[in-house]
């Protein structure tokens, strides 16, 4: 199915049920103040009115705890490792926001770099998980994807993008897998091709909603002018030495909320655990906010205090990752860290502080060819 299809909103549960053949389908569900992806249950139905999930969906491809291999510590098999069977079932996530999808695309570049450094755990789950996005028509106050090379109706990382048009839903295929998926949907419910007058109207409505969403973000006091331009121009050393860091760090608790709720954070810790005659190697999420993160066996710690760790986090997002990813910011603007930081440290404010400080910082004496201008 090459072109987009328009479905009645009432058909969405039926489509999800059809997509559920041979797959586990997950949709965002709200309980109280928390929203999370849960297995789709046709009897409970679904709502397209939610902001975003409290935690990002990265745990579907990068679980918080993952067993990599097992081994025996005793007996004839001692020392031999058995890779944990990659039992990733086929899944479909419905309602992924474009920011989270962009994060998946970004993490693809981290976990699947080339033949020799592909992370097989990520790669297999990615291959077995289909992503159907839901375009954002009413961004939250904390959203800022437009400042992070993203957009409320962007399709990067998705297989299909759905757009809520009120009584109708527009499904737009993005990848080949998405096209096949859309064909499955067309079997389950009547989809009107988005062409001609009817299609043009629907596409026009989607476009109107997209512009409306972008306008909401543009009206936020935090978004206009938010850019990485000066940060990318100045040298790493200069950004590192900016005087803004101690004040930014002073109210940080150094917990792991920002890193664990962030869709692009991907640091992990690998550890062996043994019990009796058997053992396993597990990978757990780790956070650069922790003192232990950079603690050396010698006792030395290159990031000994809060200031170094807080600086590291923002530089990773806005300096190191763009350097490694050809200019792409390491942040997708989902706003989770803004909403959930217990100390309300606002990444948008931090970036603006970095930007302003980079504009006025004197040239670095150590990096003569730094683009100061």
């Amino acid at each position, binding site marked *: 199915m090459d072109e987009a299809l328009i479905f009645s909103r009432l058909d969405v549960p039926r489509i999800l049920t059809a997509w559920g053949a041979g797959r586990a389908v997950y949709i965002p569900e709200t309980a109280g103040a928390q929203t999370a992806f849960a297995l789709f249950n046709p009897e409970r139905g679904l709502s397209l009115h939610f902001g975003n999930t409290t935690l990002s969906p990265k745990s*579907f491809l990068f*679980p918080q705890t993952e067993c990599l291999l*097992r081994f025996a510590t005793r007996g004839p098999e001692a020392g031999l490792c058995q890779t944990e069977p990659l*039992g990733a079932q086929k899944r479909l996530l419905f309602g992924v926001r474009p920011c989270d999808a962009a994060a998946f695309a970004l993490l693809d570049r981290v976990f699947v770099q080339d033949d020799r450094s592909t992370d097989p755990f990520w790669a297999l789950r990615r291959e077995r998980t289909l992503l159907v996005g839901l375009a954002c028509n009413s961004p939250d106050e904390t959203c800022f994807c437009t400042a992070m090379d993203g957009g409320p109706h962007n399709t990067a990382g998705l297989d299909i993008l759905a757009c809520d048009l009120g009584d109708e839903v527009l499904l737009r295929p993005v990848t080949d897998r998405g096209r096949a998926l859309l064909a499955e949907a067309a079997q389950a419910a009547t989809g009107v091709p988005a062409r001609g007058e009817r299609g043009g109207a629907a596409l026009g409505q989607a476009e109107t909603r997209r512009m409306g969403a972008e306008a909401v973000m543009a009206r936020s006091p935090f978004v206009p002018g938010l850019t990485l331009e000066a940060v990318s121009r100045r040298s790493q050393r200069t950004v590192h030495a900016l005087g803004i860091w101690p004040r930014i760090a002073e109210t940080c608790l150094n917990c792991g909320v920002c890193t664990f709720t962030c869709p692009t954070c991907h640091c992990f810790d690998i550890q062996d655990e043994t*019990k009796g005659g058997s*053992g*396993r190697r*597990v990978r757990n999420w780790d956070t650069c906010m922790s003192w232990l993160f950079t603690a050396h066996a010698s006792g030395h710690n290159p990031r000994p205090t809060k200031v170094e760790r807080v600086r590291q986090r923002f530089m990773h997002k806005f300096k190191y990752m763009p350097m490694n990813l050809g200019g792409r910011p390491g942040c997708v603007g989902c706003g989770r860290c803004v909403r959930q930081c217990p100390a309300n440290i606002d990444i948008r404010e931090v970036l603006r502080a970095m930007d302003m400080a980079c504009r006025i910082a004197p040239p670095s004496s150590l990096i003569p060819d730094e683009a100061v201008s």
Partner: protein
Amino acid sequence: MVSPHAYRPNIVAFFCKWCSYGAADLAGSLRLRYPVDVRIIRVPCSGSISPQFLLYALLQGADGVWVSGCHPGDCHYRIGNLHARRRLTLFHNMLDYVGLEHARLLFTWIAASEAHKLQQQAEAFVAAVSALGPARRLVKTLETCTL
């Protein structure tokens, strides 16, 4: 006597060196028999027991955990067991509150001369823990649930 083929619990005991461990030594001298399922760890004082040790034992798979010290007033270090009394009371209450079977925890005051009390407590504790079966609630296994 417990049949060798029946379930044998794994009980970790922390005994203070002066009184309770002394009682265990005396039980040996007197040739008193008590179940071998109790593995004793000698510590200087019941006051040195941190809840970390006890939870670690449970996490590693201990079916029962036993802490024993000198009677209040008789602590070799004067007041260690008085600190232990408060601490372990709160700890016991907390574990009971979260639903850990309280028959899996035993706290006793056993003086160095009370070898018979030690024997009785050991037999009763092993029987009680055996009746509960292997611990399941706070035991770390190497099974992981992944999506």
